[in-house]
């Protein structure tokens, strides 16, 4: 039980990078970008192929990010210069990437189990310093029997995700960042203040998919394989993370919202891992579970609001009735 939740949190933190990318397109740019399903795999594919071919995992990961950025820029170009509707631009790119990813990989699955990854040096350094020991001790003290193998990955992933979060927070408050947000909020206005909204959209969708590809590259290295089908439904998972996070943790400021998105990604993973522990549910049911979670996250806040409003009105009516009774 603990180990499976631990694993969920661990991968949730890595998937959070993808969710941050989705946040940038869907929320900041107001651009429903479906490239994600493809660019996630592109990140994984590029990283896996390069690692298998003997490149350093760091170079491989950085190249994967660049590939994601380019894929996003192409989607942005299709929309701004080709005047194709945002949804369609993303779908076209997603489909195109499916073939491109297969070409990159040369086969539909690349195992990475015996390769060294970006995590390898971190884990070995961590373990040589015996840093997991105190955590194992705490776990044992709490009376939980099984302890995860290493705590290195979760901390390393957390640091990367937090760095990306803080960079995003900062960027969205810079002059360019403000213009990017205004592009999603009021295009006509920001154009009248000399911002090139086309370029902003292209770069914005590019950055978003760079984050998605980073997530894909890390998931592949963490999970030990890249697979052509690993991106299916990724956009919905990203959206689920954004929506759950926003609903649970609020959107008061940008820093708060990006934190909420990360929280949402982790919670999504936990919910899925719990659901999979239920006996009659199978791995194949994951997508259905995801869809149900998203619907629930979308509908519940509205139902709650409606309930609250109803109770408020009832109370008001009662007040008036008692006043009249006097």
């Amino acid at each position, binding site marked *: 039980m603990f180990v499976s939740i631990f694993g969920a949190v661990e991968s949730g933190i890595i998937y959070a990078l993808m969710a941050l990318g989705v946040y940038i397109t869907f929320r900041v740019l107001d651009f429903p970008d479906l490239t994600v399903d493809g660019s996630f795999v592109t990140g994984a594919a590029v990283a896996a192929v390069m690692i298998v071919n003997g490149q350093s995992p760091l170079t491989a990961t950085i190249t994967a990010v660049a590939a994601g950025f380019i894929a996003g820029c192409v989607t942005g170009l299709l929309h701004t210069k080709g005047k194709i509707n945002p949804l369609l631009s993303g779908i076209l790119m997603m489909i195109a990437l499916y073939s491109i990813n297969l070409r990159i990989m040369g086969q539909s699955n690349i195992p990475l189990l015996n390769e060294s990854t970006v995590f390898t040096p971190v884990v070995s350094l961590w373990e040589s310093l015996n840093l997991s020991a105190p955590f194992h001790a705490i776990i044992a003290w709490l009376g939980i029997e099984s302890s995860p193998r290493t705590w290195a990955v979760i901390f390393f992933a957390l640091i990367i995700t937090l760095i990306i979060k803080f960079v995003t927070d900062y*960027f969205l408050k810079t002059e360019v960042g*403000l213009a990017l947000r205004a592009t999603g909020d*009021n295009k006509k206005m920001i*154009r*009248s*203040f000399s911002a090139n909204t086309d370029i902003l959209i292209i770069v914005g969708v590019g950055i978003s998919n760079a984050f998605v590809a980073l997530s894909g590259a890390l998931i592949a290295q963490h999970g030990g394989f890249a697979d052509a089908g690993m991106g299916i439904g990724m956009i919905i998972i990203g959206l689920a993370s954004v929506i759950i996070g926003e609903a649970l943790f609020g959107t008061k400021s940008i820093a708060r919202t990006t934190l909420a998105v990360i929280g949402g990604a982790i919670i999504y993973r936990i919910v899925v891992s719990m659901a999979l522990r239920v006996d009659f549910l199978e791995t194949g049911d994951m997508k259905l579970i995801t869809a149900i979670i998203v619907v629930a996250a979308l509908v519940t806040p509205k139902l709650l609001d409606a309930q609250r409003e109803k109770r408020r009105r009832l109370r008001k009516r009662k007040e008036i009735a008692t006043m009249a009774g006097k």
Partner: protein
Amino acid sequence: MLELNHISLTFNEGTMDEKKALQHVDLQLGHGDFLTVIGSNGAGKSTLMNVISGSLLPDTGDVVIDDKQVTHLQEYQRSQLIGRVFQDPMAGTAPSMTIEENLAMAFARNKKRGLKPGVNKKRKTLFKEHLETLNLGLEDRLTAKVGLLSGGERQALSLLMATFTEPNILLLDEHTAALDPSRAELITDITADIVDKFQLTTLMVTHNMQQALDLGNRLIMMDKGQIILDVEGQEKEALTIEKLLDEFQHIRGEKMANDKAVLG
């Protein structure tokens, strides 16, 4: 300062809906001129503004600002030189962003946007000083979302955003039309103050004839895509609403469609 040479623009040419929105329009404005533009619905006033701002390309003719050919510059490039306030109070600001962030974006209009924070201490002080001139108390609400402001407040903010970086040309298209009379008057007063303070070359479209007479040093009347009346200085001072209407009838030889609506 601003030169329009032989501007023509036809919408849907060769179809049933063909509409000659602008026909051979010539206009020259000097530095600091304040032009008011009147004319009935569909006369081509907004089209003229859009041609100047670059949101529409004319079929023929060219636009020159400060001796610079801008006819083929895109809207975002031209807006380095042009400040704009739209009729819709929602149009000129980004609602989900704060007052200071909106001002920061406006501040960057004639500069290169970089990766420095858009809002800093120095700019905050500057924004506050400018907001104080509006007398709406907005200087105390720098971090409030603009979407929470009333229409009048938003329009005042839009006006400030369009002007405090002193654009070469200021375009106002019925920017008080969506407001209640007292708010409209407030915005009109602020407009007069700001234009005077920065000596901005201004074009203001209005359906309020009194406003068109009270403000500015020059007035044009448009009809069917043409400038049919152009008065300046002393001559404009002497104008009254009656004289304007007479003039219109005289030129067009027809009774102006529902005078009352126009007088509004």
